[in-house]
C-alpha cells in the first residue's frame, strides 16, 4: 500500500467559541480573527510538517485547494507544492507530490492549471500526482463566482483543454464555451508520459464514481463524515460499479484520506489530541454551512432528490459543528490511539474496503507544531512500516503512481550532497 501524508493548512489560533460564532468559509472575518504573526507561524508550520513527512519515509505528500477559508490557507496548492517539489528533489527524496488539487470547475483559467502542473511534474522529475477535483460548491460558486449549474460543464471543458494542451504535438486554437485561446502551446510539458496520474476527489455519488471508473482513474474519498457510517455505502458502491463496468479489483484504484493521531498508548493519545481533534472538526468542515456543499444547480436534480430521500452518504456532516471526540472516534472520522490500536483500525478498514492508497492527516485545527511533529514521528516509525505490505500478496500493479519515482536519481540530488 502507498501511504501519503495529507496536509491541510488551518489558521491555528481560532478562538474557543469559533464554531458558535462564525462560519469557517466565505464570510469568516479575517481582520477580527487573525494576528499576522500567528498566520505566518501557521503557514510555516504547515510547510515544515509536509517536509518532515517527506523526510520521514512517507510515499508522498499531499496538498489541497480552498479559497477564502480559515481551515485551509491554500488558495493555490501549487504554491506549496512547488516548495515540496524542489526541496525533495534537492534532498533526493523520492516522494510523490500530490495536489488534490486545482479545481477545474472553479478555475477561469484552466490552461494555467495545465502549465502549473507541468512545472511541478518537471521540477520534481516526474513525481506529480495530478488531482482533478470539480471543486467544493462554496469554493467554486461562492468564492469563485461560477454559476453552480455551470460548474461541471466547466470542469469537463477545462479538463479536455488540459489534456489536449499536454498531449498536442502542434500548437492549436481552443474555441470553447468557457475558455478561448488563439494559440495553445504550453511550456513546459509534464515529464511523465502520457501524463501524470489523475486522482479524482469526490463524495462518492454514483455519477461521479461511474465517470472515474469509466476513465480508469483513482477515486479519492475523504473521511470527514465518519467512514464507519459512509465507508460501507460508498466503497461497496464503488466496487459493485467496478464489477458492473468490467474493471478489476485493483486496490490502487482507491485512495482514502483519514485523520490519524498516534500516542504511546490509547489514553495518552486521547489526552494529547482529543481537544484539538474536536476543535478541528467543529471549526473546519463543521462550520461550513450545509448549503455550501451544494448551492442550487451544483448537484443535478436527480442527485438532490436522492440525497433528500437518503442522506446516509452525508454521515455525521450535519452534526459536525457540535461533534464530540467520542463520536469522532466511534465513527472513525478520526483514528486515535496507541500504535497497536491505530494499526489495527487502519488495517481493518483498508482490507475491508480494498484501499490501496492511504492519505493520513496527522495535523488538524489548533494542534501545535510540536505535537504534529510527535504524531508524524510516531506514525512514521510505529505504524507506517506495518502498512506497506498489505496488498503485496495479491500482486497488483499500481498503474496510477508517478513514473518518475524510483525511475532515476532525482534531478538536483547532487547539489545536496
Amino acid at each position: 500500500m502507498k501511504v501519503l501524508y495529507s496536509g491541510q493548512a488551518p489558521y491555528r489560533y481560532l478562538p474557543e467559541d469559533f464554531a458558535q460564532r462564525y462560519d469557517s468559509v466565505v464570510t469568516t472575518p479575517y481582520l477580527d480573527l487573525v494576528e499576522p504573526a500567528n498566520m505566518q507561524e501557521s503557514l510555516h508550520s504547515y510547510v515544515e510538517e509536509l517536509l518532515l513527512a517527506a523526510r520521514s519515509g512517507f510515499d508522498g505528500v499531499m496538498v489541497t485547494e480552498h479559497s477564502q477559508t480559515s481551515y485551509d490557507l491554500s488558495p493555490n496548492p501549487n504554491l506549496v507544492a512547488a516548495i515540496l517539489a524542489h526541496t525533495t528533489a534537492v534532498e533526493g527524496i523520492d516522494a510523490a507530490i500530490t495536489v488534490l488539487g486545482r479545481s477545474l470547475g472553479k478555475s477561469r483559467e484552466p490552461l494555467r492549471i495545465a502549465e502549473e502542473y507541468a512545472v511541478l511534474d518537471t521540477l520534481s522529475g516526474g513525481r506529480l500526482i495530478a488531482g482533478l477535483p470539480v471543486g467544493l460548491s462554496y469554493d467554486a460558486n461562492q468564492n469563485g463566482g461560477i454559476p453552480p449549474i455551470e460548474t461541471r460543464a466547466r470542469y469537463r471543458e477545462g479538463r479536455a483543454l488540459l489534456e489536449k494542451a499536454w498531449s498536442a504535438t502542434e500548437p492549436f486554437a481552443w474555441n470553447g464555451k468557457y475558455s478561448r485561446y488563439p494559440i495553445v502551446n504550453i511550456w513546459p510539458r509534464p515529464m511523465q508520459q502520457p501524463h501524470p496520474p489523475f486522482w479524482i476527489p469526490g463524495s462518492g455519488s454514483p455519477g461521479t464514481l461511474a465517470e472515474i471508473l469509466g476513465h480508469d482513474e483513482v477515486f479519492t474519498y475523504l473521511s470527514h463524515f465518519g467512514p464507519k457510517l459512509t465507508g460501507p455505502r460508498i466503497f461497496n458502491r464503488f466496487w459493485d460499479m467496478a464489477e458492473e463496468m468490467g474493471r478489476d479489483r485493483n486496490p490502487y484504484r482507491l485512495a482514502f484520506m483519514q485523520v490519524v493521531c498516534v500516542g504511546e498508548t490509547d489514553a495518552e493519545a486521547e489526552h494529547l489530541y482529543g481537544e484539538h481533534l474536536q476543535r478541528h472538526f467543529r471549526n473546519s468542515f463543521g462550520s461550513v454551512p450545509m448549503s455550501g456543499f451544494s448551492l442550487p444547480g451544483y448537484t443535478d436534480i436527480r442527485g438532490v432528490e436522492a440525497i433528500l430521500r437518503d442522506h446516509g452518504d452525508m454521515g455525521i456532516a450535519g452534526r459536525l459543528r457540535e461533534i464530540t471526540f467520542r463520536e469522532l472516534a466511534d465513527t472513525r472520522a478520526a483514528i486515535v490511539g496507541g500504535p497497536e490500536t491505530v494499526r489495527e483500525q487502519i488495517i481493518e478498514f483498508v482490507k475491508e474496503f480494498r484501499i490501496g492508497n492511504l492519505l493520513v492527516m496527522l495535523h488538524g485545527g489548533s494542534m501545535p507544531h510540536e505535537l504534529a511533529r510527535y504524531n508524524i514521528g510516531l506514525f512514521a516509525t510505529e505504524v507506517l512500516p506495518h502498512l506497506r505490505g498489505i496488498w503485496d500478496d495479491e500482486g497488483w500493479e499500481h498503474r496510477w503512481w508517478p513514473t518518475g519515482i524510483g525511475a532515476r536519481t532525482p534531478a538536483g540530488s547532487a547539489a545536496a550532497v
Partner: protein
Amino acid sequence: MHAEVAEGAREEVVSVWNDELEIHVQVAGSGPPLLFLHSAGGLRWGEFLDRLGEHYTIHAPQLPGTHPSDPHAIHKVDTFADLLLMYEELVRALGIAGAPVVAESFGGMIAVDLAAHFPALFSKLVLLAPAGLWLDDHPPTVFELTAAAPEEVPGYLFANPDSDIAKAFFALPDDPELIPGIVAALVWAQGCSGKFLWPIPDQGTAKRLHRVTAPTLIIFGSEDRVMPAIYGEEYARRIAGSRLEVIEGCGHIPQVEELDRTFELVMSFLEA
C-alpha cells in the same frame, strides 16, 4: 413552497431556437392573452394568477430546465442574450405579440429586457419586484438568499415571515414521499435561474432601459429584503413615463403577501 399549475390549465409545448429547444407553456384563464414570467423558484400558480385568469388568458412559460420533462434543457441556453431571443421567438410562436406582460422578480428582469430589445413586443409591462439592476450601495441579496439555510428563506421573502400567508406559502404536502421531489425541483429551478442571476444579478439591463417604450407599472414592497425598494425608484427613473407603486409593510412577493392591493393596482393599470 412548490410549483403548481392551474386547475384546468392546458400545456402548450413550443419549439424554438431552430427546433433545438422546447419551451413548456401553461395556458389558463379566459379573455385576451397575457404573458406571465415566473420568478427564480419556478412557476407557481397561486391565487393572484387565478384572479388574473378571470380577465385574461394567461400564458406562463416555464424557464428551460424547470419543466419536469427535461431538467437538462437549461444547458441549451448559453447566455442571457440567447434566453431573450428564445423568449422573443416563443412570444411570436404563441401568437401573443402585443399582449401585456406581468412578471415577478427574475421574470421581471427577463420581461423588461425583452421590452428593451423589442420595444413593440408588449403593450404593457407590469414588473413585480423585478431583479436585474445593481447599486453598489444597496446590493440585492439574491446571492445570500440562494445560499441561505431553509429556515432563513421566509425572512428574505416576506416582511412578516410568521404570518399565516407566509406559512401557507412554504407549506409542504402531508405525504412525506412527495417532499423530496418537490424540494429537488425547487432547488433545481433556482439553479436554472442562477445561470442568469449568479453571482451578480445584473446582465447590463440598466444601460438598455431607455429603449423601453411600453407603459410600465413597477410594484415593490417597502420591506423587500431581496431587491430593496430603492430599485423601484431606479427602474422608474430609467424607464420614461413609468409608474412606481411601493406597498408599505410588504416584502419581495407583493402578489402573495399583499394580494388584494397588488391585484387592484395591476388590474387598474391593465384595464386603463
